């Protein structure tokens, strides 16, 4: 059931770049969940981004080939640390970009094979088989068997410290002066060494004298190999612990930075709220802004800037919530739902600007709740902005009012997108903005993309210039009210050029516009 999930969708890394950005490989770990034996195949498949079944098949295929599969499996089992690859990848992310709240896993509790018990059982069964064989008169070469068993036990003792590293550390701290790992190591070395010696002695006893020199060399090498095998896990563990501790320290300090930042901002906001307790609207606004910031820190995987339109959209929502108020001066929360994500480009920039205008309209003139829905995929981006106000008549908007006509509908059409405003009495107003695909087909022939991008940018320029100060503007100043001299004035200056461009773009955009207006009349 579980095994293939890690790999079926390829290596996934939470919070990696948006669509089109290559995701880094998952680190090599042996996952606890979904493993059959040691989790080697599962982890390897996740690391390489190939199906788990294939890796398992290869291991099985290689097993009879002089035991290569088994040896490889055993080596990886011992050398690869256990853990969830996705978690490891998450932990490797800089914590400035990681959410702080603990992730809750949907995982059912894991079931592990009682490997120690199985190993003991196998050894006992083997011993029993050997005993019975000896009793029934079979010629078992006990002289080889005993040393081999001793070597195996010694190796097992030495290697067992790898998986039990955590337990050992705990015991070494609470217990006596001599850590158990040292006992293990010494015991392992002793056992393995004596086993190897016994083996050599056995062969020497039967061998002929001239071969003694060779045998001595063989013995020495055997002892060295034995000791090396015994020491390897100890060395591996040392290296691993060092790396772990270093990473943990780096994470700790980063977390401390974040905590400091959070405390500062929250405490400051609380102080501000106390100072202005008699202004409910202001208090509500500050609380909302602080809540948003906290949520961002706690629950969002903060993407690198410029890689996510979802993040850009959140920034716009924050700006509108902070700077605009409803008709009675009350702050309005915008319920935001984002599905999918993609990298921003010139088209989505225009879309986001149009979205901002629609949000401002909904907050200032509509009635809460205001909902914002963005759906981004490879084949287009769609935005819905909805409020519960009575709406307005699109055709009734005077030519001198540029808010809806220019900055929403015009802006979208110039980029080859579609904008629709739907008002239905009692059911609120909904603005629908959409770009299909990369928007290529909506662009007029002979107009290079850069050229087509110009008018929108020019149209956006004046108000963008005014945007940083938007928070200082009185809430009554709106884009849709007739008496709003500065912005409207500025836009009119740009209008002729914009108008011209629109005629150029008209043929290609025609069908969409027709559809849009048909909807607008509904």
């Amino acid at each position, binding site marked *: *059931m*579980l095994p293939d*999930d*890690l790999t079926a*969708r390829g290596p*996934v*890394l*939470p*919070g*990696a770049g*948006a669509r089109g950005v290559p995701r880094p490989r998952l680190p090599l770990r042996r996952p606890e969940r979904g493993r059959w034996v040691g989790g080697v195949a599962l982890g390897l498949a996740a690391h390489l981004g190939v199906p788990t079944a294939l890796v398992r098949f290869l291991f099985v295929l290689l097993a009879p080939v002089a035991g290569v599969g088994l040896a490889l499996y055993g080596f990886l089992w011992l050398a690869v640390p256990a853990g969830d690859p*996705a978690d490891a990848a998450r932990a490797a992310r800089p914590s400035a970009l990681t*959410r702080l*709240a603990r*992730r*809750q*896993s*949907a995982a059912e*509790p894991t079931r592990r094979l009682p490997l120690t018990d199985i190993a003991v059982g196998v050894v006992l069964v083997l011993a029993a088989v050997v005993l019975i064989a000896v009793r029934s008169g079979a010629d078992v070469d006990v002289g080889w068997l005993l040393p081999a068993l001793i070597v195996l036990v010694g190796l097992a003792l030495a290697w067992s410290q790898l998986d039990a590293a955590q337990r050992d550390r705990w015991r070494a701290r609470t217990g006596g002066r001599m850590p158990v790992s040292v006992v293990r190591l010494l015991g392992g070395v002793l056992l393995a060494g004596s086993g190897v010696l016994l083996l050599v002695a056995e062969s020497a006893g039967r061998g002929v004298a001239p071969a003694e020199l060779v045998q001595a060399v063989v013995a020495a090498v055997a002892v060295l190999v034995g000791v090396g095998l015994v020491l390897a896990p100890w060395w591996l563990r040392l290296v691993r612990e060092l790396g772990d501790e270093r990473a943990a320290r780096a994470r700790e300090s980063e977390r401390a930075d974040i905590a400091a930042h959070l405390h500062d901002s929250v405490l400051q906001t609380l102080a501000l709220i106390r100072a202005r307790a008699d202004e409910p609207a202001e208090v509500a606004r500050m609380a909302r802004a602080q809540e948003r910031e906290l*949520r961002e820190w*706690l*629950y*969002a*995987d903060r*993407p690198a800037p410029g890689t*996510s339109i*979802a993040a850009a959209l*959140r920034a716009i929502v924050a700006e509108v919530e902070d700077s605009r108020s409803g008709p009675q001066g009350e702050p309005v*929360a915008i*319920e*935001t*739902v*984002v*599905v*999918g*994500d993609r990298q921003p480009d010139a088209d989505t920039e225009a879309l986001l600007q149009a979205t901002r205008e629609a949000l401002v309209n909904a907050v200032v003139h509509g009635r809460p*709740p*205001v*909902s914002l*829905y963005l*759906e*981004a*995929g*490879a*084949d287009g981006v769609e935005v*819905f902005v*909805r409020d519960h106000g009575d709406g307005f008549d699109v055709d009734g908007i005077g030519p001198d009012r540029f808010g809806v006509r220019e900055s929403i509908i015009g802006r979208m059409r110039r980029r080859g997108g579609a904008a629709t405003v739907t008002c239905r009495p009692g*059911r609120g107003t*909904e603005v629908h903005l959409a770009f299909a695909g990369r928007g290529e087909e909506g662009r007029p022939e002979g107009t290079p993309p850069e050229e087509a991008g110009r008018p929108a940018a020019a149209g956006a320029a004046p108000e963008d210039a005014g945007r940083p100060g938007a928070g200082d503007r009185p809430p009554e100043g709106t884009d849709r009210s007739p008496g709003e001299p500065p912005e409207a004035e500025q836009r009119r200056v740009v209008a002729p050029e914009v108008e011209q461009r629109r005629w150029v773009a008209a043929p290609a955009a025609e069908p969409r516009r027709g559809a849009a207006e048909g909807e607008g009349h509904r």
Partner: protein
Amino acid sequence: MSETAAEGGPGGRDGGPGGQDSVGGAPVDVVLVDDHHLFRTGVRASLDARVRVVGEAADVDEAVRVVHELTPPVVLLDVHLPGGDGGGGAEVIRSCADLLGRTRFLALSVSDAAEDVVAVIRAGARGYVTKAIDGTALSDAVLRVAGGDAVFSPRLAGFVLDAFGAAAGDVATGDDELDRLSAREREVMRLIARGYSYREVAAELFISIKTVETHVSAVLRKLQLSSRHELTRWAAARRLL
């Protein structure tokens, strides 16, 4: 699809008797599980007369005990809870699996994280609402859950669309497919994500509220049973809000 023609018309417009008021006169008993006393008090005060709080619990173990003692029709359950094995709300639901026929769980969370929400839904919760919800809407949601329906907030609908890849046009063709949404279910989810109430969804699609509820329940079932075991991880990889 077929139900559009069959159930469109006036019944679809104003919703009919189905939905919120289907549970008659007596108030619905509710157990409130949240580790913040202040929040429990707030919720109790905001619920209207249609809902009665009969018990409260502050952690996983207490919640399991209280729910087993009272077997209320609805449990309002916080996603993040201390105690138990650290599994939070999902652990409470799993521990009360023997009651799932009689007791229904409505998840209540301040979290924006898809994993948290999807974890409780997959454990068996019948819906999810944010803690910012007002009292009337919460009471509506409780009644809806008590009536056996699913409650989807816009955000949960967004998670679902993202998790099932519905945004990419990945739409089921057969009814029995668990891993993908049907075109109609996707449409309903999108409208809910856009802030439409069930009633408004019904009006928009010219279907009855009952049909909307059927679709939503079907989506909930898919979310709970889908073999996309790692829905949450997958959703996280797609970087939801």
